[in-house]
């Protein structure tokens, strides 16, 4: 028997705001709630997906990639992901700087992805990011949002490591 939730309760249980739930529905990360009688009704499936989104965010996945994952995984796999048991993330190929996003194509429809178009660029500028003494990261200004995300994570972990030392 699936429980039905009111928006506020669902949001509280999932640890997000009601507005974020609504944003995910608008964006297509969550299915639309049903309308029964006078009330909007969300289900356990919504809660499961909200928790899965949080888990995937903890793995630094951007929302576009999360959307792909949510569409790919079966309810059972989603549950495993949330429980932290046997779930394995899609094995992405190693990120290559400036690589075309086609490599991440899992065959699932992605409604909205803002990849930069290389065709619009004539020059490419590389930024050097010093991660630690003797270690540098080079990032092209044409790199995708996901790549920049990754670069930022690397930088932050380097900073954190540096702070500990």
């Amino acid at each position, binding site marked *: 028997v699936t429980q039905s939730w009111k*928006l*506020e309760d669902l949001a509280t249980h999932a640890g*997000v*705001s*009601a*507005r*974020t739930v*609504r*944003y995910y*529905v*608008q*964006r*297509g990360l969550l*299915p*639309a*709630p049903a*309308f029964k009688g*006078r009330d*909007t009704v969300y289900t356990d499936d919504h809660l499961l997906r909200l928790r899965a989104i949080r888990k995937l*965010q*903890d793995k*630094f996945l951007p*929302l576009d990639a999360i959307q792909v994952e949510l*569409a790919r995984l079966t309810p059972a796999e989603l549950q495993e992901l949330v429980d932290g048991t046997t779930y394995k993330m899609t094995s992405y190929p190693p990120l290559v700087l400036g690589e075309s996003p086609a490599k991440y194509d899992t065959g699932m429809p992605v*409604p*909205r992805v*803002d*990849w*930069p*178009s290389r065709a*619009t*660029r004539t*020059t490419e*500028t590389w*930024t*050097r*990011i*010093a991660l630690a003494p003797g270690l540098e990261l080079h*990032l092209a*200004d044409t*790199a*995708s*949002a996901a*790549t*920049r*995300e990754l*670069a*930022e994570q690397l*930088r*932050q972990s380097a*900073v954190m490591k*540096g*702070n500990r030392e």
Partner: protein
Amino acid sequence: MSQSGLVTTAGEGIPLLGVEVVAEVVAGHSRVKVRQRYRNGAAKPVEAVYVFPLPSAATLVGFAMTANGRRMEGVVKEREEAFRTYDDAIVAGHGAALLEEERKNVFTASVGNLLPGEETLIEIETVERVHADQGSIRWMMPTLVAPRYIPGARDPKGDRTAHGSADPTAQVPDADRITPKIASVSYGLKLDLVFDLGAELEIECPSHRLNVTRVGGKTSVAFTQGEVALDRDVVVIARGVAAGPLVSLLADEKDGVIALSVIPDLTMGRAPGRQDVCFLVDTSGSMDGASIVEARAALRLCLRHLREGDRFNIIAFESSFRRFAVEPVPFTQRTLEAADAWVQALVASGGTELLAPMLDAMHMLPDGTIVLLTDGQVGNEDEIARKTLAARRKARIYTFGIGTNVSDALLRELSGKTGGALEMIHPGERIDEKVVAQFSRALAPRVENVKVSWTGIDVGELAPAEPPVLVDGEPWTVLGKVNGRAAGTAEIRGTLDGQAFHLAVPVDLRETTARPGLVKLWAAARIADLEQVEVTGARATRMKERIVALAVAHGIACKYASFVVVEERTGDRRASGQPATVAIPVNAPAGWAMFDKKADVDSLHVNKVGAARGAMQTPARTGMPMMKVPAPMPASVPAQAFGGVPGAAGGGGPQSPPPAPRAYAMYSERDQDDAPEAEAYAAVDSSLASGYAMPESKPSGVKKKLSMRLDMPKAEPKKAEKTELDPIVAILGRQLASGLWDEPGALGNDTNDGRSTRATARALLELNDLGVDANHALHGGLVKKAVQALLAIVPRLAAAEAELAVAVCWLVSLGGRTRKAAEALAVASLKPLFGDEQALRQRIAALI
């Protein structure tokens, strides 16, 4: 999974057809209706989300939706409750609209279940107080929420709630709510603006071409083109507004509210002595283009309003900031020239980290005057205002909002809460008027620690609760709740020059000008007061409840209360399923250089999403050098750097080459040798190019003090900026710090009293021919400064030069006191000529 989701923002299928602004300006206020027309061209129901601007001083008093031929008025509810009402209605297939305040000048309209083929009209009504300043009223309407700088790294814990182009950051948790995406949009703007001010008005518009029609006492204004792009502020200036009474009393009898306005005459107060001024100039990417040119010009004019003995400094900021000098320096000819050259070399690029330089300025001059020149495009307004006000002792902040799209909310707050003032400069507007207005305010006598008490009448709950300072000649207003209709007195007390100040204003409530709706302005002012109170925990909750109660009771929206309207639908009109949500994109702002080159809009967006910092940087600029090159010392730059105007005495010298771009030298007294190379302090931006910058623990853009010798870079004259100066500004632009003029080419320490007397006399006579004398509304102050400087050196001058100086001073200074001073210094042969202007002019011509 149901097939819902975001429709792309590619220009097709945008359900916003157009925006119309209908406004009326009457004595004292402006009432504006913004109408947004929506039409769903898709086959399925759509929800539109439109992030749009309103003037930050406007109070939102009405919201209505017209659908299917029926107009429904919105109601105000607590913000989350309003959201739930809206959301429930949308999910249930009804029609609904929601209006939320994101910032004082940024709002979100959500309009839901737009049915295929159906048109829906949303109307937003605002009221704003308007004061005529020297007979002119400046009416302004922003048209787009421009890209703004979002400081901080993306917050992995920050969940999105909206479709903006920026992700939430720790510093701006709602960044996604205030950053509408940029696209080329098809919807336009219409204007129907009426000035009902009786007088024959002169209409000026620096932003658009207008058609002006006059019927009866009303002046109507519309765009010549009919419809224009929403890409720049609409600025309309009405001149020739009849001066209002010095004291006015408006009343809203139904609700028992009065507004008392006073234009105080405080001329008995002494003007303050020496001033310490720190200029803060925004050189971020959003200022690139027309704005930085305006900012440089305004800054150079500001500098010329300093007096010898004043101290000043300049801070230029973007992702990092740099000082002109280590400490505030005395205003002298030498520092003026150095500052001119420094300002001339400013270029715009990078983020807008305003907080650190603002705190630096506050730390430098906690009791001084801070002049901020910016477009205000930042996302962390609250943080900046809070920390700046906390660091302040008595400093006042005067702000210039510069550009085609200015975010005025922060500027208004900073200046309003420090007793300063805001002036907006749209490209094409006269800068000199605004600079003069700001400096005369900064120097004007003022009454502080103002308290208002009432005798004979029962007035309470004043708003603002802490009355603003009284500044000579500036309109001052308080609103209050009133009981009964008696006559009495308002007693305004405070301190003027450290002395007790007392002003008694007779208030007769039986003779007021009726102004229904005043209660909404009162409630808005009360809410602004309460929002300012810093409380935490349970007290914060109670404070929020008080604010919501005020907003709901008076039907006005604010940060914590939104307008919502629901159209209950049945039968065919009731939709089923989640509507597709369309976030309405906005135009690229006009005049912003970052959008000039074939507007690579997507990459800006990607940069903002991906980059933690430097969100405003365009890709073209990410390859900037990692270290800024110090400039040659400005001492070698001639004074004509100001505008590069040919000498008035027919000099016409070559325009002095500005230092190489992106070169920022720090002024230092030690570096005054005329050597072609010099030692300089360079502000080194050690942050990395594209925005993956310093660890958060360090302030952005840590500066290293570098000591280096370098070769003077080959002067590479930049393309002459087309700042066409009028001849008056050109002459004044060459006035030296002392107040005198000198021959073109004569520099710094090479002073010669005789030569500068003749140059000053010539300049003053030219100004006189152009109609500028000591009583000139705008430039009289600079003429007076010259006269005083000239009279001061008379004792040192040779006889003929002394006579020339005295004669010219007498001629251009119409005031009795200065003329008496001149007469006292005059030689016997000159005295008979006073009173015979023609003879005096002949004598001057002979002497010069």
